[in-house]
């Protein structure tokens, strides 16, 4: 058989039916559900008198609206509370493989809890009404975000209507420098190809620098594939993948484990497989990244400066840069390290796993939040991450540094709960989107790695983490 890419293997093993124009029905193995994009789907299902096709494919949690402090008070915002209670009621009525409701010890961000519970397994198709579902591709899955109509479609039919994507391989070879993380790699990729660079593609990440990453790092990279326009990002299965999954709650056990692992080892692109497009980066060229604008592609290195719109030739782009600088309150040519921050957010499905918290804690240890920084939020991705961090004493480091140690959830990644920026406030954030108003109306977001966020927190401005030995 001809050499196949990982995407082709995953695609062809899930096609149920194909229309003449190539639109296919793809079978869905895992359906992750959260409170924001599901209520209209459950309602639609009910109105049409339909039942979910396979309840055991559903894993649900409440994450977007939940508060990250004073859990004993419940959810104070009545509209948020109604949405979370609607999910409670829907799952109670319909059923699921697992539900981690508000205040459950395993509750957390949907893209953190799937993998850590072994509910995301190699070879699966994974969907969720959330664009960052691309995260799960780190496990050699075909994982993508869907809209609410598709959530309803998957519930009712266990399938998704899809057309096959083109394939794009992003190879990162070499060794990442000290202080350079997966977040910097993916921001550098987006800076290179742009936020629409991956549109229409299924994106695979390969090369020795990707292979050397932990599962946490691979998830960070796949998480932001959508920020490069690709609906799915993925990494082939290797021993790192398999080691991570061993003994997770929903991972197979006994004989089934051996059978599964034998199959999973085939889930990588074959030698010589052809991709429609190839992008190559050298790991050594990647430095710590900081975004300066209102789109993740508006990014530079910590050694860089805010761009000058006068130097941009294309008029649509120039206007985009001007508008972004105005919104961000930045002057052209300002050195990145001169930019001071008001808040720091360490969390989100991009960077809230144990390894991220360890990286932030390593910088925070023995240091203090700078006086000009109003607040530093550290929000673990899940109850399990929180517990692990506390067992390692990371929370004590954060608290000693003057950071706030919070309960898990999406928090200030999108500010649907009470955690948000005030108008005009500037934030170093480990999340994935720096859109206007994303972290609160009028708020200004700079995307960075957890280590860089912690460095900004203790120095009060962006600082090259490599100099904070």
């Amino acid at each position, binding site marked *: 058989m001809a050499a196949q890419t990982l995407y082709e293997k995953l695609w062809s093993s899930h096609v149920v039916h194909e229309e003449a124009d190539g639109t296919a029905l793809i079978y869905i*193995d895992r359906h992750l559900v959260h409170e924001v994009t599901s209520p209209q789907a459950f309602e639609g299902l009910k109105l049409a008198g339909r039942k979910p096709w396979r309840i055991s494919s559903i894993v649900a949690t409440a994450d977007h609206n939940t508060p990250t402090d004073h859990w004993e008070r419940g959810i104070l915002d009545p509209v948020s509370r109604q949405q979370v209670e609607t999910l409670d009621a829907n799952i109670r009525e319909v059923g699921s493989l697992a539900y981690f409701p508000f205040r459950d010890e395993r509750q957390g961000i949907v893209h953190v809890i799937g993998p850590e519970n072994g509910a995301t397994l190699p070879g699966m198709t994974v969907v969720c009404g959330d664009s960052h579902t691309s995260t799960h591709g780190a496990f050699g899955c075909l994982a993508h975000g869907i809209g*609410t109509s598709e959530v309803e479609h998957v519930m009712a*039919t266990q399938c998704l209507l899809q057309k096959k994507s083109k394939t794009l391989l992003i190879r990162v070879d070499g060794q990442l420098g000290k202080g350079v993380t997966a977040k910097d790699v993916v921001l550098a990729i987006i800076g290179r190809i742009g*936020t629409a660079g991956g549109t229409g593609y299924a994106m695979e990440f390969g090369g020795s620098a990707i292979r050397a990453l932990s599962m946490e790092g691979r998830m960070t990279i796949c998480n932001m594939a959508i920020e490069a326009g690709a609906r799915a990002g993925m990494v082939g299965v290797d021993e790192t993948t398999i080691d991570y999954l061993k003994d997770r709650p929903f991972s197979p056990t006994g004989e089934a484990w051996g059978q599964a692992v034998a199959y999973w080892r085939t889930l990588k692109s074959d030698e010589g497989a052809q991709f429609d497009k190839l992008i190559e980066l050298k790991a050594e060229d990647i430095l710590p990244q900081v975004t300066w604008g209102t789109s993740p592609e508006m990014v530079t290195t910590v050694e860089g400066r805010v761009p000058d719109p006068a130097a941009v030739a294309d008029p*649509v782009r120039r206007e985009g840069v001007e508008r972004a600088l105005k919104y961000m309150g930045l002057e052209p040519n300002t050195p990145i390290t001169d930019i001071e921050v008001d808040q720091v957010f360490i969390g989100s499905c991009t960077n809230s796993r144990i390894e991220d918290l360890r990286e932030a804690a390593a910088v925070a240890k023995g240091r203090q939040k700078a006086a000009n920084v109003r607040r530093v939020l550290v929000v673990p991705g899940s109850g399990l991450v929180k517990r692990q961090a506390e067992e390692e004493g990371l929370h004590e480091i954060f608290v000693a540094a003057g950071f706030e140690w919070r309960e898990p959830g999406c928090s200030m990644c999108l500010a649907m709960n009470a955690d948000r920026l005030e108008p005009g406030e500037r934030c170093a954030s480990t999340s994935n*989107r720096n859109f206007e*108003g994303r972290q609160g109306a009028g708020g200004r977001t700079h995307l960075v790695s957890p280590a860089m966020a912690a460095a900004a927190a203790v120095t009060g401005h962006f600082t090259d983490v490599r100099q904070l030995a």
Partner: protein
Amino acid sequence: MKPFTKLDGLVAPLDRANVDTDAIIPKQFLKSIKRSGFGPNAFDEWRYLDVGQPGQDNSKRPLNPDFVLNQQRYQGAQVLLTRDNFGCGSSREHAPWALEDYGFRVLIGPSFADIFFNNSFKNGLLPIRLDVAEVDELFRQCEATEGYRLIVDLAAQTITRPDGKAIGFDIDPFRKECLLNGWDDIGLTLRHADKIRDFEQKRRAQHPYYYA
């Protein structure tokens, strides 16, 4: 779903690239558990001078006079002209719900983000990709002519300008069929229920560990 066949509609230009779904409908409105009523909050942060909250009386809020859709000449627009990568960002279907509820039925631009593109079709909203040069010309004509209208004919796959020029556009045959007829995807898919069941049975036998 509402079928889409032919439309003769007023055009409004939104001359920005990378219009993201957070801009189309800010997150505070995502707390609603309904599918309708998002129109008054479409482009909320650009459209109003204050910060919008769910459940507010939007008719009393101060409008931003600098936002293009607030201009008198574009009131009642059903066709939105946009730039590259419209609808990037989150998968929230609230974005097409808001645009549809606002009154748009057609979006024209050089490119759209994948998930948004897909979500639009599910809601009777027709996104059309055209060459950059064609889009540039439409922007030019639209801004120069008050009351600028386009005729969009889905069956013929054409957009006809006031000067009589017809521009062809591409669309997947399957999507076109669904939109023309207003078909419900789920009903269509369930015609293949036997095939899905067969597939599932085989998969369960081959990979039992996915069904624990």
